[in-house]
């Protein structure tokens, strides 16, 4: 399999020009292998931890608002742009051809704006670090992984609003998305828009090559991630999360079953502020928790 494409530049020096599209297939296959693997694991192998019925420490209403209206709008807008980006980027590669570049960069700009807005919003109004992975979480992750490897039933830890795996996923997606965004913004210099003419000599050819490679790499990684994300969104035991991203609320039972009321204290955040779910991409951490 080819991973990178190189070509001799006008002076005969080999330079990077981009990723090889074999990678796209590899990413898609990786996504499906994960899906199938996870499915089989859950279905046959996953040890079931006994459910501990939690005691409500406080008054819990019938419906707990999990995502505000704004939060949900953001999520779906972002999902749409992400999908647009993926489709415009990769359909031509797999042979479905159309005029993709303009749609792609416009969607790219929309995504960028959404993310900027989200970052500002999250850092001012939300507990910015609630979705970030710290040393503590990493320790927990190692423990969990160790247990998993020893095939010990993992104690169903109830989490705060954003459980560890959601947060880890969020972080990975954030990184990769920032990757496409930063490189994508640079690549905007190379295309004609209504506002400026392309300037292909903005970067040297080998730097362009690197930018394209990073953009392409992050792009294909997103393919895998999105496959996984969608998979979890439609898994039966996670549908309550998907529903919450559509309708905004979860039931009292779901709240008590999945959350530690000490870690996610209801009513402690200003109304509507918990919205945006902390996702930096269409991958909604609330919906993809590989349990």
């Amino acid at each position: 399999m080819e991973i990178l494409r190189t070509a001799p530049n006008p002076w005969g020096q080999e330079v990077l020009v981009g990723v090889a599209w074999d990678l796209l297939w590899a990413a898609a296959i990786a996504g499906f292998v994960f899906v199938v693997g996870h499915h089989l694991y859950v279905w046959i192998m996953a040890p079931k931890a006994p459910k501990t019925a939690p005691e409500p420490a406080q008054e819990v209403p019938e419906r707990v608002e999990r995502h505000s209206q704004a939060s949900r709008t953001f999520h779906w807008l972002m999902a749409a742009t992400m999908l647009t980006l993926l489709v415009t980027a990769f359909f031509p590669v797999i042979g479905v051809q159309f005029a993709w570049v303009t749609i792609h960069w416009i969607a790219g700009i929309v995504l960028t704006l959404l993310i900027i807005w989200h970052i500002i919003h999250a850092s001012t109004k939300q507990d910015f670090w609630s979705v970030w992975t710290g040393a503590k979480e990493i320790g927990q992750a190692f423990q969990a992984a160790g247990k998993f490897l020893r095939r010990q039933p993992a104690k169903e830890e109830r989490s705060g609003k954003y459980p560890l795996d959601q947060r880890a996923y969020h972080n990975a997606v954030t990184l990769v998305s920032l990757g496409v965004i930063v490189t994508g913004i640079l690549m905007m210099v190379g295309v004609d828009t209504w506002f400026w003419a392309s300037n292909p000599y903005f970067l040297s050819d080998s730097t362009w090559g690197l930018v394209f490679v990073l953009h392409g790499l992050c792009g294909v990684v997103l393919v895998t991630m999105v496959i996984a994300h969608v998979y979890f969104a439609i898994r039966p035991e996670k549908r309550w999360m998907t529903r919450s991203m559509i309708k905004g609320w979860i039931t009292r039972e779901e709240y008590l079953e999945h959350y530690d009321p000490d870690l996610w204290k209801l009513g402690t955040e200003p109304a509507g502020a918990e919205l945006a779910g902390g996702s930096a991409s269409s991958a909604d951490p609330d919906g993809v928790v590989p349990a």
Partner: protein
Amino acid sequence: MAVIRDMMPAFELFQPTSVDEALDVLERHDNTWVLAGGLDSMDWFKDRIKRPDVVVELGSVSELTGIRASGDGLEIGAMTSLRDVVANEDVRSRFGLLADAAAQVATPQIRNQGTLGGNLIQDTRCWYYRGGWPCYRAGGNICYAGTPRSMNREHAVTGQSRCVAVNGADTAGALVALGAQMLVRSAGGERVYEAEDFFVGPEIDIERMTVLEPGDLLTHVHIPGDWAGARFYWETARDRKSWDWALASVAAAIVESNGTIERARIAINGVAPTPVRLTDVEDLIQGMPANDDTGMAAGELATRGFKPLRHNDYKVPLARNLVRRAVRGDMA
């Protein structure tokens, strides 16, 4: 790896005698190349930039050669030489536009050897790309021709999308103006394209000039009778009178009655990555007298929104004036 040019590397050559056989060879091998007259292909081979492993030469496929009546029009085999197209009595008398265009391609030697199919499918002559630069069209990530200092006198003034190369096929504009159809066969069967849909711009696919994909063969060009005997206008503006591609060209089929334009079909080429059919102009001039005012209006409309590059601003008035001449009814 050091670079060396103008010396053809070896490849495996197949010379099938039927379309089926040709398609079969194309199907069975990777990295194939269809060879017609070779005038475009050999350039690539000799410069070692396009390097097929397998070359399928169509010279012995007799079903691809020749011109015959088909319905009220003509069907021309893709392997028919440009000379035979020019010499054909039916083409000359009924579709003189194609004969005129083909007659001015390059030189007599090239017209003897070059085929109609090869002429239509020929790759762009952007010299950055032809020079083996790793530009978009070559699978890279830069258009070297589009920068503010690039040498783009011969490049596109419209239809640019990252790539600013032009289509240089003289017969392409003529066939668009004649409303021709392209018959394409692959192992999967036959497809038919309107001439104007046969050519693909970089916004759709930056690495190809036509819809043809590996494994596809253009078998025939069908010219319907719709425009037979219309007033035709063909003109190519170029730096030399032979051996040269159009800086811009116009192909027009116009039906007039009493000096009024009843209907028209006009294409320009050499100005965009594909031949450009001027549907707006066709609509505009319908019912108008064929004179210089109409011509000027047509030319202005045709070139509205053109975006010249650093060195090709002249193509705007050039294309405008060519359309103007075609519409006002100059003698070609």
